[in-house]
């Protein structure tokens, strides 16, 4: 336990993004062979920290010290050379190429003269995959694998060769229990070999199962650094969220109205299978599922972005054919999409243009846009949602994530949506904005709007929803009244 056992030291790391302080003076030390759990909500700064460690983001303030030597990584390749391997959450695979090539990306496996020996490459890949107890064929093309298999290949890619520090960013999000067990075995084996592991996860049980120590980040600051055996689940949770969720967001009792949305036997390819559910006015209904469970596809279908292969959708008792988002819009369905920057806002346009983007036809009579009307529309939402921006002519890209998300919500309130679909509405935004988004959802319910939410954060679901549907492999496998269930039950159902 002496100081010279420290493999990695990150000293007063600070990182600023436009409008947000993503990391504020973070200090972390990790010892050789230690498994460090890195905890925090989405947007707490975990990913940013990892990207700085790997050289994907430039280091602005602070120091990275590896084996006592200060290092500056300008490019991910330089950190890889130091033995720092990262399994990113968003997979970085070469889809049209083989598994073996993905594992050995950027290297030459083979004989003399720099030539590649496919046979050797296959054999080596086999060895690594065997270590992981995986029977994936090394010569299979990547795009034909399941999400879990792909995850396995990513792990294989990271652990082969010289690895000193292995960072795993939610490695289990797509794995079933069998695969997770295999993963644990691998991690322990790596630990024995002296590999240091930084393990990021949302799942408490994993943290207690596998880590030696945990570091908790909140809003870009380090708020906790504990040995795993000396802490408790409750302590960690309260460190992560600051306050208890239910205290922070007390749920109001709201009168439920008639059923405004009814979905019957909807399927989409093999991603959504025979899904039926309903939503009442004034109700918040949540969908929970792990990666690949089909929740995102279901929302795309409900908004007409993808066209259901079969099934019926009724809005206020009337069957509608959702062939394009403009049909959904016509029936007062609004959509806050998953990927804010790619699907939610046009970052190169102004706040005003974004707020009115679903409502252009009402910006004046005839063909022309009446700028007075436009300004009036925008100002209304500035006040109501307390959007923090200099004016409606500000470019959206200069806003913080939370304010961008409010712009997306405003866009659909502007349409007076009766049904609002929110796909991970609080991903990557700060705690303050989160609370405001929840408040907005609640206010909407009071006005008789029905809200559907997809979220991967169970505390959020438990705090704000009235009912929960759990999805797996495209099917709904459970329905609960939120008051009558808990985190363990939902997680267990979703992951087995």
């Amino acid at each position, binding site marked *: 336990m002496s100081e010279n056992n420290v493999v990695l030291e990150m000293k007063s790391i600070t990182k600023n993004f436009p409008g947000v302080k993503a990391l504020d003076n973070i200090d972390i030390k990790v010892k050789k062979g230690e498994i460090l759990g890195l905890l925090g909500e989405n947007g707490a700064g975990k990913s940013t920290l990892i990207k700085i460690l790997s050289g994907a983001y430039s280091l602005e303030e602070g120091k990275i010290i590896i084996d006592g030597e200060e290092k500056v990584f300008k490019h991910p390749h330089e950190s890889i050379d130091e033995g720092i391997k990262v399994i990113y959450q968003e997979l970085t695979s070469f889809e049209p190429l083989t598994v073996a090539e993905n594992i050995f990306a950027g290297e030459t496996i083979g004989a003399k003269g720099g030539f590649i020996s496919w046979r050797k490459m296959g054999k080596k890949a086999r060895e690594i995959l065997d270590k992981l107890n995986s029977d994936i064929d090394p010569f299979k093309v990547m795009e034909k694998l399941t999400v879990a298999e792909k995850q396995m290949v990513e792990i294989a890619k990271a652990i082969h060769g010289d690895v000193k520090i292995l960072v795993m960013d939610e490695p289990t999000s797509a794995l079933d229990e069998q695969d997770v067990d295999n993963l644990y075995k691998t991690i322990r084996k790596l630990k024995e070999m002296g590999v240091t592991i930084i393990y990021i996860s949302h799942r408490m049980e994993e943290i207690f199962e596998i880590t030696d120590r945990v570091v908790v980040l909140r809003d870009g600051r380090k708020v906790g650094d504990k040995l795993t055996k000396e802490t408790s689940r409750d302590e960690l949770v309260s460190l992560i969220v600051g306050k208890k969720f239910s205290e922070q967001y007390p749920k109001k009792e709201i009168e439920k109205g008639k059923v405004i949305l009814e979905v019957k036997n909807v399927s989409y390819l093999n991603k959504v299978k025979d899904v039926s559910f309903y939503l009442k006015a004034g109700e918040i209904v949540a969908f929970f599922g792990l990666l690949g469970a089909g929740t995102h596809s279901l929302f795309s279908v409900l*908004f007409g*972005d993808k066209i259901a292969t079969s099934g019926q959708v009724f809005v206020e008792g009337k069957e509608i054919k959702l062939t*394009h*988002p*403009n049909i*959904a*819009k*016509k029936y007062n369905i609004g*959509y806050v*999409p998953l990927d804010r920057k*790619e*699907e*939610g*806002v*046009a*970052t*190169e*346009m*102004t706040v*005003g*243009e*974004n707020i009115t*983007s*679903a409502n*252009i*036809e009402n*910006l*004046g009579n005839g*063909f*022309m*846009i009446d*700028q007075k009307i*436009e300004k009036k529309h925008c100002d209304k939402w500035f006040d109501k949602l307390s959007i923090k921006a200099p004016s409606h*002519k500000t*470019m959206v890209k200069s806003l913080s994530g939370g304010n961008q998300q409010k712009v997306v919500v405003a*866009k659909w309130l502007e349409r007076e949506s009766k049904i609002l679909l929110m796909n991970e509405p609080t991903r990557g935004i700060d705690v303050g904005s989160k609370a405001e988004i929840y408040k907005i959802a609640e206010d909407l319910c009071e006005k008789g709007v029905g809200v559907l939410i997809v979220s991967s954060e169970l505390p959020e679901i438990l705090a704000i929803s009235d009912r929960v549907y759990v999805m797996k492999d495209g099917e709904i496998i459970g329905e609960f009244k939120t008051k009558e269930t808990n985190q363990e039950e939902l997680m267990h159902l979703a992951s087995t």
Partner: protein
Amino acid sequence: MQDINTKKKGLRLSDTIILLIILGVLVAFFTLINSDFIAYNNISTMLKNMVLTGILALGLTPLMIARGLDISFGSSISLISVVIALLYTVGGVNLWLALIIGVLVGVFVGFINGLLIESFDLIPIILTLGMMAILQALALVLANTFSNTYSILVMTDPLYYFATRTFFKIPYPVLVLIVLVIVYWFILAKTKVGRTIYLIGANPTVAKLSGIKVKKIKILLYTFMGLVTGIGGIIIVAVSGVGMSYHGKNLALPTLSAVLLGGISLMGGSGTVAGTMLGVLIVTVIFNGLSVLNVPSYYIQLFQGLALIIIVAAYEIRNNRAAMN
């Protein structure tokens, strides 16, 4: 006027000033070398030359703002001019009908381009490259089959008057350009359609998820590109007095250069009619200047290529620099 659109869509003020300075320097340079450059005759030739590039660049402006692209318009103009000439001379069709059919050919080509690109998610430049070959071949075949020549004389009073007479001292072709400029400016800067086009270019996914029929609108923009190509076809027949299967051959590069110079990006979302027209003006001055200096034609082609690369490189380098800060 505090226009909400000017904030980023237009050229930045500094860009506009730089472009104006470039224009001034070019004019001064050419005048210095050959004082005929600013003679009335040359200016009027220049304006006429500018009309065609200008009209095509206008058509490209909304299309490229919405992330589309068409490079088949050159061949399309060749074909249209041949069709008009053949219908009128060989076919004996009424002139006005021939002109209308010519325009319809352009509209049809634009529609097909848009339909194929949008329904199959094709890369616009590749499809229109293929279209270019087909249209060029059609123009050649039609001209060969029906008149055994590459250029067909079209002698009519209305077209001749249109090309030579003026309306309050403004040549009619220039008048057409002015009208189109006003229409396009109005649509892009002031109307709901214009806003929709910018939104599509800024982010097509967001546009679709805002309930905008992106594909439909883009097909419409391709079709309108076809329409202005048709108008361009009429003008070229009127000004030159012939329908020729090589009329549009050297139009693609200058037009594309003008549009890009005017601040339109291949990534869509930015550009204005004013910027485009400034680009057209500069490109016209350069190429007219070169021909006043009696530069051989192969140089002109060379300069066209250089101009395109320098223009895009300049913007690219500036963007890289901006990204670094």
